[in-house]
């Protein structure tokens, strides 16, 4: 399916880190089935590092590949480092995405951010990158309805 890069196809066909973490330290959910994409990210934090990252994804090939790529990119990183992962970095790592699938790369980074926020709130920690870079999430969620 050459609309997608080889890298996207690899991650789609064999997504890494799929699953749930029952006793997750943070959970972030984004998207909704109306748009056709929904992701739930689970994180396990140890020593300020993402010891484990898992997710479940409902959505298109790009959504699944993005989830997989994000999980790969942030696993083992510190929370601050993980928060520095932007949608365009994800898209780049995937060797590009079709224009109308860019929003999927947003979703991946956002879901992870939400999981970290969830962790931060639960543990009452303040992580600088978290609030600064907050994106207007609603806009993205409704992108599909235009």
């Amino acid at each position, binding site marked *: 399916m050459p609309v997608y890069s080889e890298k996207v196809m690899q991650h*789609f066909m064999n997504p890494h880190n799929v699953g749930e973490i029952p006793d997750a330290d943070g959970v972030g959910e984004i998207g909704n089935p109306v748009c056709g994409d929904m992701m739930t990210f689970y994180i396990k934090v140890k020593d300020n590092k993402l010891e484990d990252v898992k997710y479940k*994804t*409902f959505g*298109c090939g790009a959504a699944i590949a993005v989830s997989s790529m994000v999980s790969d990119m942030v696993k083992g990183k510190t929370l601050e480092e993980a928060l520095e992962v932007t949608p365009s970095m994800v898209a780049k790592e995937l060797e590009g995405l079709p224009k109308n699938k860019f929003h999927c790369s947003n979703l991946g980074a956002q879901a992870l951010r939400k999981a970290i926020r969830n962790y931060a709130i639960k543990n009452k920690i303040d992580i600088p990158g978290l609030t600064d870079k907050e994106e207007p999430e609603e806009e993205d969620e409704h992108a599909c309805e235009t």
Partner: protein
Amino acid sequence: MRKVYMDHAGAMPLLPEIREAMLPYLDEIFGNPQSLHSWGDGARDAVEEARERVASLIGGSAEEIIFTASGTEANNLAIKGLARAKAEKGKHIVISAVEHFSVMNSARTLQKEGFEVTFIPVNGFGVVDPDEVFHNIRSDTVLVSIMHANGEVGTIEPIAEIAKRLLGNGPVFHTDAVASTGNMPVDVKTLGVHALSLAGNQFYGPKGGAALWLKRGVRMLPLMDGGIQEGGRRPGTEDVPAIVGLGKAAELAQRDLNIRMQTLTQLRDSLIKGVLSQIEHSMLTGHPVQRLPAYASFCLNFIEGEAILMLLNSHGIAAASGSACTSRALKASHVLLAMGISHEVAQGSMLFSLGLDNTEDDINYVLEKLPQVVDRLRQMSPLYSKYIKEQRG
């Protein structure tokens, strides 16, 4: 890897006989049908023979056939040309909520020109109620367009009944029979319509060969201006090979219609039975009986169509979906939504459109792979895990 093509609604391979009929018109008999010399004669004869065949397939007469390059063009010509020709009499048109985009968006363009459009709803099977059409006819209604068969779920609409209700009423009645013509009996007199769109690439003919049948005497403005081809109703150099292919496809469809329908209905029914029995949380979309012989369409809950298509493709299987992600406009099929299916469920829509090249083995192969694919995607679906958790209490 085994290859199983079940997206005949999207594209069909040319039947060898049709291919053979077309080939001479690519080079040997390359003339322009309008030319006044022997080279033109051969091309003109071929075009006129094709016209006869297409007319014969649908019970019309040859001079009522206007060749176009696509079903989309035939629909645009009909909707815009018929409405605009009658704009002085009234500016209200009636279409169903499940029309193809070429009808739906033509109507929207007419809205911008001051027409009012009434969209007739459908029931859960995608069927239009003839009463509903009738009750929405006004004194200024100039055009009604209801499709003959739906290209996404295969539901066949009660065109003849609608025509009966409209009888004596003013509006011109057009039907988009692009999905049905060549695949089931289509007769303009039985249907009682004034105009009918058809496309050869829906019945093993070539892309580029389609037509509008327009009942003698019905006024229509052309969509394009130019020379005198097709009586000035559709100018531009005739695409002779495509027209010849369409004519041949019509001839073969007329000859083989019954056997084709029988074979395909049988295959379709075993696919439908298999999917519904082997896959939990699956439903048939469209009418269970009043449906195109080749159309097996479903919604598979908790998962998304593009992902299903991609995994099926990795098994060599081709199908289609009406999910938001597959549409490029990122909207779930308006047909499924009009049938009352939720956005969420519509995301998992699948259409297997069968063809003469499919066998019982193909069905079995799909019935082996599809459940695996569905299962795999459900295993990674947050919607599915929520559902399971809810079930567990």
